[in-house]
Each structure stands twice: as structure tokens, then as C-alpha cells.
């Protein structure tokens, strides 16, 4: 019986080694992003301009980004959301007089399970 267990777990372990092939990048962005997100969560002033760009990390796939997109679209004043997964940029269009606050935008990113790196407002 023991050798059967050894064979089974050896196969599982061998399969597990295959995952050790990835590299780590952008750690500086994470540290910076953490600070930005925490500050933004306390900023209750509304954004300026007709649009705002959120730079977000951790949206690993199209369905993941849909999670954030739907949350943003439910916010008052938001009329459009466009996501570029490659750059992590989420462009939020707010053409009307009602503008979301920075804390609300940061909260939407956090509650969707992602990391807000920075917020870029249109001039």
C-alpha cells in the first residue's frame, strides 16, 4: 500500500514543480500603489473633468475586468468605462454634472479585488 501512495504523491509533486517558472516584476509599483490607494480612499472630493483614468493592477483576464467595469458603471455620474488590460488603465467617462469622488473610485477598485496604482484626471 505504501508504494501506491508514494507513486501518487510523486506524480503530484512532479506536476507541482512546473509552476516554478514565473518571474516577479513591478514590485515598486505595488508598494507605491498601496500608498496611493490608501490615500485615495480618504479623499472624498469629487473628480474634475469629463473623465478619469484609473491605473489598476491585478486584472488578470477579461472576465476579471468585467467585475470592476460593472461596479463603476453603477456609480452615479459614470456613463462609460473602457478597460485596457495590457496597461491596466481603466478610463471612466463622467460627462455630466455629477462626479464620483476619489474615495468612491478607489473603493470600487478595492471591493472588486484589485489594486489601485494611481488616478489620472483629464486636464
Amino acid at each position, binding site marked *: *500500500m505504501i508504494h501506491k501512495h508514494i507513486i501518487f504523491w510523486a506524480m503530484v509533486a512532479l506536476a*507541482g514543480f512546473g509552476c516554478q517558472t514565473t518571474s516577479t516584476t513591478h514590485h515598486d509599483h505595488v508598494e507605491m500603489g498601496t500608498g496611493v490607494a490608501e490615500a485615495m480612499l480618504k479623499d472624498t472630493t469629487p473628480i474634475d473633468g469629463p473623465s478619469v483614468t484609473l491605473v489598476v493592477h*491585478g486584472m*488578470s483576464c477579461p*472576465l476579471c*475586468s*468585467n467585475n470592476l467595469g460593472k461596479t463603476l458603471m453603477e456609480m452615479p455620474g459614470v456613463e462609460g468605462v473602457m478597460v485596457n488590460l*495590457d496597461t491596466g488603465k481603466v478610463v471612466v467617462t463622467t460627462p455630466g454634472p455629477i462626479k464620483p469622488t476619489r474615495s468612491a473610485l478607489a473603493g470600487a477598485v478595492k471591493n472588486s*479585488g484589485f489594486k489601485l496604482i494611481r488616478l489620472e484626471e483629464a486636464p
Partner: protein
Amino acid sequence: MRVATITATATLLLAGAVAWAQQPVHNPAATQPGKGRLMMRELVTFQHYDADPKGLGRQADDVVLTTDMAYGLTGDLVFMLRAEYLARDQDARGGLHSDDDGFSDLHIMFKKRVWQQDTGPTDTRRLGLAVGLDLPTGSAPFGSDSWDPMLGVIYTEVEGRWGFNAAWRWKFNTGSRPNPLRVGGAGEDLMMTDLSWLYRLSPDQFTAQKTGAWYAILEANGFYETNGDMELFLAPGIMYEVQGWALEASVQLPAFQDLDHRPNTEFRKRHKTHPCSGPSNFGLGLKPVSGCCSTDVCVEHGTLQGSFLPEAKSPRSTAREWLCR
């Protein structure tokens, strides 16, 4: 020791779920809906058991309707629920026949993300803990009549075009009704170990306009029961995913089987479809706040071993016990 014959499982999955983004067919992932988000999935499974090695000509068909729900309680805590309804049609040589239908046990689970490191726009590492419970809500012969807790650890990593998932789950069986045809049904504790890799075949780079993606998948799914039964499956597959839905297909091949307390699986085929066009697909009156619904259709074939063949009692009970022992 009985070594199983080479078996195969074919799975075709059309999936649409934010909560299970980047999740392979069989391996759970440490992804989940955001706060206040509800995700539903409908699963219809057809199972067929035949190829009786004793030559008794016994066959059975199961139809299983499964409903999965995931609701984000916070940004890192999700509540999940699974309900199954089964209809079973059994035949055996000599004109034996029986029909049964009913609910199996309700399964609830909380999944908590305990660690997260987002290292790039699409790069992330996440670790989640899962605590679940099977409630004794099912009817005979599908219910367990027992409270069966479950603990698990789930890890997900995405780096560039590569993705990796690993899950380890342990189900404490406190007295379930023996059902050797299904893994974990023999009344013993069950350990489930899953590993999977994903590679984004296309596109090389996402853009705001190019949001659809093709992924190649390879899974390793291991099952070990405390009675010594164990199985290891390998499952290559492919997935297409856009923002609102996903299409996934895989073929599951058993690489290792050693089963002494339930029938070996000679061939198992599973088809799943997940139409995701909107709430009209649910049939349950629940609106998905994020993600969408899905429907799975599965077909399974099993080989019965002699040790599980019961003594003939009455024509009706014989077929039933054959499936439930």
C-alpha cells in the same frame, strides 16, 4: 491492488462567470466576485454507467441538475452555495428496473482571500482559504444523512501570459451513505488535490478594443480517500474568454487509479455549456449583478467491479443497491 484501465473524460465547457475567471474546468481558483456581486451557474449532468464486468448487463443513467451561486460579502470574502437534483434510471439483466429522483445534500462554503500581491496590470498572486459544509438535506438514495465539513486552501497566480492554480481540499465524511459510483461516496474522508496551468495563446497583448483571449489549459486532479482509494487525472483543455462570457473545453485522462472500494471509471465524458446572454438564461429568477449564468451538460460512463455487485433481493432493490453500495 486493481489497476484501472485507461480512461478518458471529455469535457466541453461554455462558462461565463466573473467569480471563476481564470479558473479551469475542474480546479478551483482563488478568484471571486466583488463585494455585492452575485454569480449564478446552472449545471446539467448526464451520467451513464455500463460495461458490467460480471456480464450481468446492468446499466444506469443519472441526470443531475446543479445550481451554483457565489455572492461577494466583502472584497475578499465570498459565500458559495451548491444544490443538486438527481434523476436516476437503472436497469439490470432479467428486466430489473427502478427510477429514483431527489435532491442531494446542499453544499455551502465561505472562501476568504487571505493574501494578495498584484505585481502588474494582469499579474497577480492570490491565496484563499475555504470552509464548507454538506448539509443533510438530500433525499434517499442521494443524500448522505450527515454533516460533512470541508476545509481547503486555494492558490492562483497569473504572470504575463501564464497562469497557475493549485487547490487542496479535505472533506470530513461523518457517515455519508455509501455510493461507490461517485468519488467521495464510500463513507471515507476525501482529499482533493488540483494543479492547473494556463497559457494565453492570443492575443500577445491586450488593448482596449481587443479583450477576447484564448487560453491553453493543463490540469492535474487528484482524489484520495482514507480507505486507500486514489485517482489522478490529467486534463488538457482550451478556453476562450471575453468580458461577458467564456467558452472552455477539456479532455480529462486518468493517469493513475487504484480503487478498491468503488468501481473504476472506465470512461467518463462530460459536456458543459454556459450560455451567458443575460438573466433569461437562469430560469431561477435571480439576476446576476456581475458575470452571468451558465449551463453545464455532463455525461459519465463507469465500469462496475465485481466487489460492488450486491446479492439479488427484489428486482427493484437490486438495481438501486448496485448504484449505492
